[in-house]
């Protein structure tokens, strides 16, 4: 993988909540190199620190220790302006689409904000509408039906797709997807995943999936990181980690997932 460029990396990244007796180490000295154009999965059970790590990568919470490097340079989000600049390069989709929108903003505003963020503030209105229609078309939504609506008027699946339309307009280098499909059922999940993969092909971004679903991680990703108690216990290519796990924790995690071709062993609880 020598010819691949590193787009996001971290060294000794740590997050500690509280102090004294209440101290909780959520993320414990993790090091990683995420390569450009790859799909990466962070897999772990609830409470393993996946979401904390994601928030640190996005710059939503500070780091206790360690550094993050973005496109080879040390990340600098000391001022609001620099932070906004950073967010042009890294964007996120969250688990709950309902809580991801400002309830007072109409759909138009949501999408227009994305165009403005990419420096399209001075474009003529017709051009903006064209861009928005294109983005909605990409996710099989009709812009004419959405215009002048508020987010709560849409269904959960529509909102999640609108989230992807935002990403289509923003064209970030990295997309962090925090449990993007855990709220929707199996057949809409396939649609959302298809769209994300197509989007990745189109704008050549890196996707970081954060999930507890081992099957999903195996299906979508090139590289898988397994997290336990804030540490990476195992990492490597998806085939290597999921099909031939070496660490006992990974083995247990994979054996706990119900399967259809192999026997699901219930005796090891």
């Amino acid at each position, binding site marked *: 993988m020598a010819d691949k460029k590193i787009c996001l990396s971290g060294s000794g990244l740590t997050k500690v909540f509280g102090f004294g007796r209440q101290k909780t180490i959520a993320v414990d000295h993790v090091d990683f190199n995420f390569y450009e154009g790859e799909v990466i999965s962070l897999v772990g059970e609830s409470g393993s620190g996946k979401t904390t790590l994601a928030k640190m990568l996005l710059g939503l919470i500070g780091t206790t220790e360690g550094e993050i490097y973005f496109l080879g340079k040390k990340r600098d989000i000391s001022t609001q302006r620099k932070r906004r600049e950073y967010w042009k390069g890294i964007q996120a989709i969250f688990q709950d689409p309902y809580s991801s929108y400002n309830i007072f903003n109409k759909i138009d505003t949501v999408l227009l904000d994305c165009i403005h963020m990419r420096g399209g503030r001075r474009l003529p209105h017709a051009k903006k509408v064209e861009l928005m229609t294109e983005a909605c078309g990409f996710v*099989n939504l009709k812009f004419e039906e959405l215009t002048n609506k508020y987010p709560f008027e849409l269904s959960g699946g529509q909102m999640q797709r609108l989230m992807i339309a935002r990403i289509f307009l923003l064209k970030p280098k990295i997309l962090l997807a925090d449990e993007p499909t855990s709220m929707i059922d*199996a057949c809409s999940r*396939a*649609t959302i995943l298809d769209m994300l993969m197509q989007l990745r092909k189109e704008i050549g971004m890196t996707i970081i999936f954060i999930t507890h679903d081992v099957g999903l991680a*195996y299906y979508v990703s090139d590289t898988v990181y397994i997290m336990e108690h804030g540490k990476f216990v195992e990492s490597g290519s998806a085939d290597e980690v999921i099909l031939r796990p070496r660490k006992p924790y990974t083995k247990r995690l994979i054996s706990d*997932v119900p399967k259809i071709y192999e026997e*699901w062993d*219930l005796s090891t609880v």
Partner: protein
Amino acid sequence: MSRVILEVKELTTKYITRFKEDIYAVDHVSLKVEEGKSLGIAGESGCGKSTLALSLMGYYFAPLHYMSGEIIIDGRNISGMNPDEIRKSILGNEISYIPQAAMNALNPTQKVIKFIEDVIQAHDPKATRKEIYELARERFEILGLPADVLQKYPVELSGGMKQRTVIATSVILCPKVLIADEPSSALDVTSQKMVIKMLLDLMEKGFIKSMIFITHELPLLYNVTDDIMVMYAGQIVEKGTAKEAVFDPLHPYSKGLMGSIIVPESGLRDVKLAAIPGVPPNLKKPPEGCRFLVRCKYAQLECKARSVDLREIEGGRAYRCIFSEEKLREVYKNG
């Protein structure tokens, strides 16, 4: 053929909205569960899975209304009974229900044992606290839950533990049918496995006679239940054993559903996921013909003209499509 514990004949229930519109969420559903068997119900959100569960319990409170059909539990017809009467004599000792967020059913200000006392005393007012404690302790130990859970408050228990406590409590009177509505979807894989093991233990040890398991997670359903029933827009579209339904689905909708399974097993990375385009029909005005018509790849003019009946084929399977079994297999083979 063993004893039939639960039999449902042509059950139809509807919701009446505040604009006086009727929504038929369960539309002529018939099913049969034999002693020692479990039935899985699959389908996407809003297809009527949970409404079916509520209807089976006779839990008819507005806006849900009973329309027609029969529900027979071990020879006793409970359809058309007064909801209050059902709550007194049916719920708990004939049929029991585990909701999705079962852990929220516990009262945070009371100890677990108090919750169990309430359940038992509602059916048997003469039971003493000592008897109830002994029964609960014994039952918890058989099911692999530590007995000191009984003296704890719900906040002291983890999510998986609370879920298992509620399951153990809901079957304390040994109901004949247990309805589990997404009992593990709020839990992570390890707790999920413990919950499933417990449910299977209940069946094995004879505390319940049969189980209905509702979920949209197909790999789980395949591992837990004997038979699978697929619902779409309030109707049954496919019925068969778990193996048949997962590996050899007949209805185009179940075919699509099975194509969206993701499991961490070799070879599945190269399979392209089958996404079903479109959305289910509005149940206020369901289409005349096949309800799956607009999303179906193989739809014909004929599908639109008349309603499609459930076709019974040999081996106890059934599916709702105008095509014959051979025809469907042929079109799937050609893609």
